[in-house]
């Protein structure tokens, strides 16, 4: 029995993937999300003002890592008084140096200064920063390039989705599994807790916690979205576990002497995972929306941040700067749409009844 169940299980996933692949929209969405991940991972190489790799005074450095974490930026440049400006300083302080620059020389956190890149004027500021060859998506009121902001903002958008739903998924599955499998007073307790958490308005909770925190960061936002967004997942998991614990393979597993933890993890969970993945995917979409609306309201990550929602917030005071609305708006829309399409594709690919209905 134990030997045959993994084979059948993998057969189920292979079958689901085969069906998923047939849906062009879902596949396009998956490709889009993969592209976003690529952009997020390579953000400092796509847009930035720090060299991707450079040779300086005989050694190789990768200052662009500073965009991921300040501590990764080599300190020799601060010591040599680069003041954050690489192109000229590299040449002046070591004529033998060379550097590989990002595709677009623009910074997501500040305006590029006059002649910072030899021969290029400073970014336009106020309401004059229309999209141009140099500033592909225009600049905001302070002269910060919108394209660079959006490239670096991709990381936030993706992280918010994955981290918060990672948290929500773990809590939801554990709570739901315990309630559904054990039943009795445990089920009673977890169901009531689930209902109570459902009543908490996420947005209000985030607003108040952000006001209380000494140093609010994007991680707090993710944690709160995750800690309040698991209820739907828990209910679904509980339902699946209730259903599956009566099934024959579980009885068989129990008969062979498997303990409850083993049964839950090894036998029930893999079979229950498909329907649970669907709300998680939708949850990622809604977490991205929540983060954007928070940033729009001014409660996002602390400035200067490159979050898409905060670009929208900049547009609020001057709607004639359409590029501050259109680009981040489209990006949020497409990302949320992509996750929803993936979720839907997943649902149809894994749910036999839906499959039948569509035929």
């Amino acid at each position: 029995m134990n030997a045959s169940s993994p084979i059948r299980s993998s057969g189920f996933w292979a079958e689901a993937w085969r069906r998923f692949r047939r849906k062009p929209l879902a596949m396009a969405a998956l490709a889009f999300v993969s592209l976003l991940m690529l952009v997020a991972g390579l953000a400092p190489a796509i847009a930035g003002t720090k060299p991707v790799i450079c040779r300086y005074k005989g050694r190789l450095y990768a200052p662009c890592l500073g965009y991921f974490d300040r501590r990764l930026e080599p300190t020799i440049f601060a010591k040599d008084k680069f003041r954050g400006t690489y192109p000229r300083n590299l040449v002046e302080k070591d004529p033998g140096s060379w550097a590989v620059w990002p595709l677009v020389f623009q910074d997501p956190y500040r305006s590029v200064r006059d002649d910072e890149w030899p021969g290029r004027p400073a970014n336009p500021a106020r309401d004059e920063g229309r999209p141009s060859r140099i500033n592909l998506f225009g600049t905001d009121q302070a002269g910060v390039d919108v394209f660079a902001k959006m490239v670096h903002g991709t990381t936030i958008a993706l992280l918010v989705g994955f981290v918060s739903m990672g948290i929500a998924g773990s809590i939801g599955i554990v709570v739901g599994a315990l309630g559904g499998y054990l039943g009795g007073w445990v089920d009673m307790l977890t169901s009531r807790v689930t209902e109570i958490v459902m009543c908490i308005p996420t947005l209000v909770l985030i607003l108040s916690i952000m006001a209380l925190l000494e140093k609010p960061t994007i991680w707090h936002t993710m944690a709160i979205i995750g800690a309040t967004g698991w209820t739907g997942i828990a209910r679904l998991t509980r339902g699946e576990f209730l259903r599956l614990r009566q099934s024959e393979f579980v009885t068989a597993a129990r008969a062979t002497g498997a303990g409850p933890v083993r049964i839950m993890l090894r036998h029930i969970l893999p079979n229950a995972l498909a329907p649970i993945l669907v709300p998680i995917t939708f949850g990622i979409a809604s977490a991205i929306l929540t983060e954007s609306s928070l940033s729009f309201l001014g409660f996002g990550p602390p400035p200067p941040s490159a979050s898409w929602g905060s670009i929208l917030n900049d547009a609020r005071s001057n709607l004639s700067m359409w590029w501050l609305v259109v680009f981040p708006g489209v990006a949020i829309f497409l990302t949320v749409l992509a996750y929803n399409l993936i979720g839907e594709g997943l649902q149809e690919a894994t749910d036999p009844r839906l499959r039948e209905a569509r035929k």
Partner: protein
Amino acid sequence: MHRWSGVEQGRRPAVSVIVALAALLLLPACGRKTGDALEEALENARPESTAAEPTRAEPAPPPAERGTEPFTPPALAALDAEAKWIDRPVRDGLKMLREAQKQETVLATVDEALALENDSAAANAKILSALGRLPEPEQADLEARIDRHVTGDLGSTNPIMISTSAEFDILGLTGFGLFSFDRILEPFATAETVASWQTSADGLLDKVVLRDDILWSDGRPITAHDIAFTYTVIMDPRVPVPAVRSGTDQLRWVHAYDDRTLVFFHKEPLATNVWNINFPVLPKHIYEKTWEQDPTLKDSPEHVTLEQSPVSGGPYEIVERKRGQQIVLRRRASWATVGGTRVREEPFFKEIRFRIIEDPNTSLLALKSGEIDEMILLPEQWTTQTKGEDFSGRNTKVTAPEWVSFHFGWNIETPFFADRRIRRAMSYAFDHDAMLEKLCYGLYEPAVGTFHQSSWMSPKKKLEPSKQDLDKAEALLDEAGWTDHDNDGVRDKEINGRLVPFEFSMLVNQQPLRVAICTLLKENLDQIGVRVNVRPTESTVLQQLTQEKKFQAYLGGWGAGTDPDSSENIWATGAGRNFTGYSNPEVDRLFAEGRRVLDRAKRAEKYARIQEILYEDQPYTWLYWRNSFYGFSKGLRGYVFSPRGPYHYSPGFSSLWMPRE
């Protein structure tokens, strides 16, 4: 009813905090028609108001507890014999303005000015010159109505409860006052209400003789007894007066010798006494029966009725009040005409309608559609949203300097900013030009200190506005011992055996412009190895944190008072609004001296010196002066700007008019 008084007193500090907050955030500069800056005034009011007494229903406390020491005023004849009275100015603000305008050359005709787009300093000057003039005889439409707006409802219609900017706007028109000041903030007694004003040679007494032809809106005469009575009410600690007690608390006593003769007794001969004798007035015949029973002045049935339809002592009375929507004032006949004869000039507007609109975007729409006739424009609105025909079809806009300044405040009690060199390094590190040009659209002037460059108390030798100089900033930081010891790219210093990195939080309210300024500072300091965490903070929290000194740095602003002495509570050691913890004995001494010097030129030297010392010490990095930007309907004339905007001085709002069709 008495039970409530304790509760109200408990609430008083909260009220002051909220209004003080308005000051820190700088809502449209709250002017006090009758005197010094509201912003500063409040602070003085706080210490005594926090001394909340236990709830008590017993009879009134003995006089000693009632805010004033018992005082027996000497006979008037004795005073007159000793005082050596010196005459002080009694003026009519409108007449003065009319005289002054006769000397001015008009730069454009009205039609030319109305056709102008305000896109240059020259155009602005033409518009102000042509449209700011007072009417020729018979030119003004005396039946006209002006539609104004306020950004919040009135807390109270009682004149002594005045504290928010909306209350100053409205109660300034319905209230009675003896004193005012002109557009260069020169104080005088108003000829509309005062026959003569004299000060004793030793500066300890002020004698005012009222005119005998002034009436309350219920027909009873306004007398010196009303003013003396109001003084005792304001000084009673049971009365929850939010703002006006600061100033009156510097007085020893106010005594009415007869219906017209009033003497103010001062504790000390201060230059600021002219502002202290200036407070709103209650009708004694109404309140003397009711206030002892209900010192909150708003809970008893009589007071509720009065709150709804107050007795007015000014040129206008409130005729309609829809809470949260609008307040309508109408000119009262008994102001200008007494006993069938015209004794005063009639105000130009028959009716003033105040709409209550909180959101500036909504008020701009209302201005464009002609629903309101005036508003304060934000820099972005001025630059980008008031250019087209939708605005200039009905409206015009003007700008003028205003004494409202913004700054970064450095908490001197933290290890970072205790050293003057570091505060100067901060000022050198900040890119002032980028802030002024990019973020402020080139509309604001750079600030160098607590007094405006054009004011009389500013030093003769102009102080240079700070300019960015990263080399100097780094040199100063190195000198002060903040270098990168541990090679992590961030400057640090060993304090008490621990290596402290130079990383601090910058508190700022959530207004986009101010967040952008802090972000610019972050970028600048980043370049020289100092880390800043910008923390946009909800405004009440920001106010609280700065009050309690729980901050490292913040961005805030102050509106200047009419008198430089009002800045003392920002700079004196341990003063209530000295958020940065600044302390310099010389500054303390200069403020104390400045108050006691009566000659203006000599006083100016004291304050100029203070300005220079503050410039050297840089407890603030001064950023900019926020000028006035106003949109006005094209039908409106007569706006003239003072350092405190177009309304809150004399004549101020009274000079506005509309031409006959």
